[in-house]
């Protein structure tokens, strides 16, 4: 049982390293960074309480929002998904990503106190 899980994971990792284009790996690294930041913020909140609750929320929402936008970007620029996004070129996806981030940042800064 454990061997099948382990083998699935190692297989997955191999395939990932070999067949994913570099561009996507860059985005994946960014997503991992966002994930870790969010998780650490959540851990801090669990440890010391929610005193400036608004600050915690804005930081956490920032991470969650950025992660979601990053995922959207990754989906849209993946050449394998080109069929699903015929009218959206990678440049367009990036522009959308930037615009959505601007809105997210305005909200987060407003809320951070």
């Amino acid at each position: 049982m454990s061997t099948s899980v382990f083998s699935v994971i190692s297989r997955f990792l191999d395939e990932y390293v070999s067949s994913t284009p570099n561009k996507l790996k860059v985005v994946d690294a960014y997503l991992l960074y966002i994930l870790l930041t969010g998780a650490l913020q959540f851990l801090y909140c669990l440890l010391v309480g929610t005193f400036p609750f608004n600050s915690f929320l804005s930081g956490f929402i920032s991470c969650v929002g950025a992660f979601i936008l990053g995922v959207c970007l990754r989906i849209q620029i993946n050449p394998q998904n080109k069929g699903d996004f015929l009218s959206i070129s990678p440049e367009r996806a990036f522009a959308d990503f930037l615009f959505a981030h601007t809105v997210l940042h305005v909200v987060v800064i407003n809320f951070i106190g």
Partner: protein
Amino acid sequence: MALNGMLGLFLLTVALGAQALTPSHHLSAADVARLKSFLNQPYTELESAYYTIVGLSKLGASVSDEKAACQFLKSHLDLSSIDSLFFAAEASQALSGCEIPVSNETRDLLLAAVSEDSTVTQIHRSVSALSSLGLPVASQEVVSALVARITKEDNVLAIIQVLQTASRLSQQAEMGGILEEIEDLAARLDDLGGVYLQFEEGLEATALFVTAAYALSDHVDMEPPLKEDQVIQLVSSIFSKKSWDSLSEAFSVASAAAAFSSNRFHIPVMVSSQGPATVSHRQPVLQLQITDVLSQPLNSVSVQLDSAHALASKSVVLSQEPFTQRDGIFELNFMASQPASGYYQFSVTVTGDSRLVANHVELKVKVSTEVSITNMDLSVVDKDQSIGTKTTRVEYPSKAKTSFTADSHQNFAMSFQLVDVNSGGELTPHQTFVRLHNQKTGQEVVFVAEPDNKNVYKFELDTAERKSEFDSISGTYALYLIVGDATLENPVLWNVADVVLKFLDEEAPSVIQSKTLYVPKPEIKHLFREPEKKPPTVVSSTFTALVLSPLLLLLILWVRLGANISNFSFSPSSVLFHLGHAAMLGLMYIYWTHLDMFQTLKYLAISGSFTFLVGNRMLAQKAVKRLGSK
């Protein structure tokens, strides 16, 4: 006997049914003195001298120095002015031994003023001057001139002067038309609330109207067409003002007062009691004063009590009883009919002169008495009635020799009777209170003693039931009985006994606080909001570093992956795009530190649209490059 009763009843109905109006105001002796002193002002000119001299003479007084007054009149007389002649002539008539010299020119001047072309005032003044100076007046000419003027000047003051002029003419003149004016003028009076009757022109006009109407009516010996109620209302109006604004107003009030007190037809009469209208055994006689509007006593009248009935029971106590006159005061010994204490309504009639107006009066009279407390019995009763009661009798005003003890198993009881000293009957006064006063703590509790159906007052104190009123504080309480009423001459505050009350000790408050309501209360200290507990700085700093560490990891990964900026084309649009984007991120930081949302949105709109335009260009170039290289 029955006939007397019926007659009494009939008269009672008549008296009550008439409910005659009585004047609400008149001039008391103090008011008359004030009026006289107000009129007695030093002369400034002929008109004010006229008001002073003639006004005082109407009130029956005279100026202090008649010679000086006469001299003043002569020196200020202007022989060419009708007004001046009028004032001087009238005033000189009021002074004794003052003669104004008259010449033919003066007479001609005055006679010439009597015509249709002069104003009513001029006609009035010239006729009055002629009459006062003893010169002949052509009455018929005057009447025709006045009648002609009435049609042209029909305001109230002009018609009043017409009436006054007519009263100086000969009695043979045809004055029918002028007499009708009295009734017309009376119709113009305003009724205020059924109490006052006056002209809208004011008090002075009303007073002058009264003077003129009675002067003319007396002159022609015809009763003025004024109803009794109207006369009473006029009296109320004219004498309602007790301080006067001007000499002319004071003069008009004095003239009206003189008219009301000595005309041939209507004499309003004032009935008032001497002192408070109270009778008792010590003061059994009700004394009434009968005066006219100037508070001068009317001695040639007789006063009769039509009926006196008790207000509470409406039963007639006395009827058809005359008052006896003594030194100008009318007296009646009411206590002779042995009335019970309380309030009575007296219906009094003043007769003796057919001119009397407002001579039926209703008076409220109080009969007071003295109370005595009898059969005061105090006892301590056990609740379960197993131990017999011991009753102690206490005589007023002494105090019980021993104190009474009552604890929660016993009741303290008190019973007494209140008796009218003079009649022996039972009384139920308005206030019968039992007050218990704790001398040590200053606490007092008051209860009401109620009579039973035999008019025996009973008070019972259930110690257990009433403990909340006493705050369960045990101790010695002084017991007082308070009896009071408006008709009692001797209210009672009697310390009857001392009562020791025992409450269950555990219920008593530990600190016996005197019930002080009005001392400063403890200060309320405002508690500011405590800041929330923050974690220690070490923890926060550690976590700040931890949260920033994934950034390091990201950079390492990117380098590992080979991400680079070697493809960066230094085209203007891409440079500008990056600058614009950096500006937007910088704006975020400034928003966090300095700005508010509106300013940020404004700057964001500017930089955002710029960045969008150049970014669009840059991405288009990239797309072209990508498609070209494919």
